[in-house]
């Protein structure tokens, strides 16, 4: 295997895990609430700005800012749920209404971030020594490796929560059979608010990781992350949080490896071709199941 190919795979894995977190947050919200969160990318960017503010104003390092960011985003979103989502149930088509509502939230958030932070691209000025680590032919920025480790810890925490705790199992249960959770005495509204908080809390934390891995962020790039989120959940299976991770890694590795051999535009197309091919072969995504829908 050539050094370049190995480099592409490593980069793809790092990107993939971070993309997977974007998809997992989007997937939890969609799976539990049937809400298409078009503003997910804006919440990712807001997370980056929040970390930037904590670093600039309070000197809190980005990795230390993650738990705080998650707590703030979770808490605010938990409350925001009760303002935004329950009224949708009265609509003739709640899913379409939710899509339009969150599209509006997306535009509003983009405009607000532009107003508050200006249009200039910003970056988290955070460096680690040594700047690069070398593994044979592969050179990886240290901060990317630490970001990968942080992302994997978040994935492990998320998996533990979803598969080992009562609330996590209830969240998975509501994705499988929303009507049935009422029968066992679960407060659906409260659980839905937790899902909304969790999804957006993940978006906030992922925003910090993207700001560490990519050179800069601005109020205009939220839609790009939303698109990536949709691609990976379609690949992995709608409503399946772990499927999103698998889909993301496949998408990112394809994109990064293709970028070695083709120009960047073609590489991006390769990622989307993978998605289209998956839809043709397996319309429910890699881990999605028709029965769950």
């Amino acid at each position, binding site marked *: 295997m050539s050094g370049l190919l190995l480099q592409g795979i490593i980069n793809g894995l790092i990107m993939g895990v971070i993309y997977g977190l974007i998809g997992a947050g989007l997937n939890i919200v969609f799976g539990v609430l049937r809400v298409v969160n078009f503003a997910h990318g804006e919440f990712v960017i807001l997370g980056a700005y929040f970390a930037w503010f904590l670093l600039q104003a309070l000197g809190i390092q980005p990795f230390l800012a993650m738990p705080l960011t998650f707590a703030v985003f979770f808490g605010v979103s938990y409350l925001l749920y009760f303002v935004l989502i329950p009224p949708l149930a009265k609509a003739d088509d709640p899913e379409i209404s939710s899509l339009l509502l969150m599209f509006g939230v997306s535009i509003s958030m983009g405009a607000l971030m532009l107003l508050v932070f200006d249009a200039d691209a910003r970056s988290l000025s955070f460096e680690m020594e040594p700047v690069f680590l070398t593994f044979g032919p592969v050179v990886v920025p240290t901060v990317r490796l630490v970001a990968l480790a942080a992302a994997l810890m978040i994935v492990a925490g998320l998996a533990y929560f979803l598969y080992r705790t*009562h609330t996590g*199992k209830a969240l*998975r*249960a509501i994705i*499988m*059979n929303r*009507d049935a959770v009422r029968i066992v*005495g679960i*407060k659906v509204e409260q659980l839905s608010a937790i899902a909304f908080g969790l999804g957006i809390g993940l978006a906030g934390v992922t925003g910090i990781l993207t700001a560490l891995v990519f050179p800069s962020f601005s109020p205009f790039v939220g839609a790009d992350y939303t698109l990536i989120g949709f691609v990976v959940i379609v690949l992995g299976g709608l409503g399946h949080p772990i499927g999103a991770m698998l889909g993301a890694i496949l998408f990112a590795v394809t994109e990064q490896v293709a970028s070695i051999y083709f120009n960047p535009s073609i590489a991006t197309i390769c990622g989307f071709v993978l998605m289209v091919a998956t839809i043709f072969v397996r319309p429910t995504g890699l881990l999605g199941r028709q*029965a769950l829908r």
Partner: protein
Amino acid sequence: MSSPTMAIKDVTVAYHGDITILNKVSIEARAGQVTGIIGPNGAGKSTALKTFFGLLPLRSGSVTLHGRDISRQKPHDRAGEGVAFVPQHRSLFADLSVEDNLVLGCWVFRHDKARVRRRIDAIYDRFPILRDKRNDPVSSMSGGQQRFVEFGRALLLEPSVILLDEPTAMLAPKISREFYTLIRSFADEGMTVILVDQNVRRCAEISDHLYILELGRNKADGSREQFQEGSALRDMVAAWMDYKID
């Protein structure tokens, strides 16, 4: 006659605001008895059961539990008070294991880990097949086995009232007989059983009191004795429902 454990009184329920499904329906159910609800398709039987559990808002009337008005209580609160519901369509979480489905059935007392374990073990003792398949996803089980999981999950709450909607639908006759015996045993153990069933003969056999609904209204009701062979009520129901009861 003892006072009813659970009752709906003069209940009117409408879907989408203006399609009335139940019109001033009253049903009373007592402890230690099976209360059967029968009627043709569209009579409002399942709607009545959902109303008992609080899944549908009332337009008028009331729901009482142990004589207390619980009309405004949400389903999760009713579950917490010992009302269990087994709906007609599968209500399991397909990709979760039997054990996880039962664990979620303990949601209302989930913080009491000892009680959760004790209740699940009691269910395994009652339905040994579930212990054998505790780690299997319920989607891999047969229809009858899945019904056992649903019954077991309902019993986890140690319910005083158990609501059963077409519990033997889609089951083989031999398995169905097993379930009717089980349902009767719930009442014999002191539970209040409210049973909706299309199988009029079986329902009449195991019920202590039968309610007949037609087009969302009370048509008639009577005790098991009043439905005995040759009774006027039995003949009326048979003729009216176009059923061959025997």
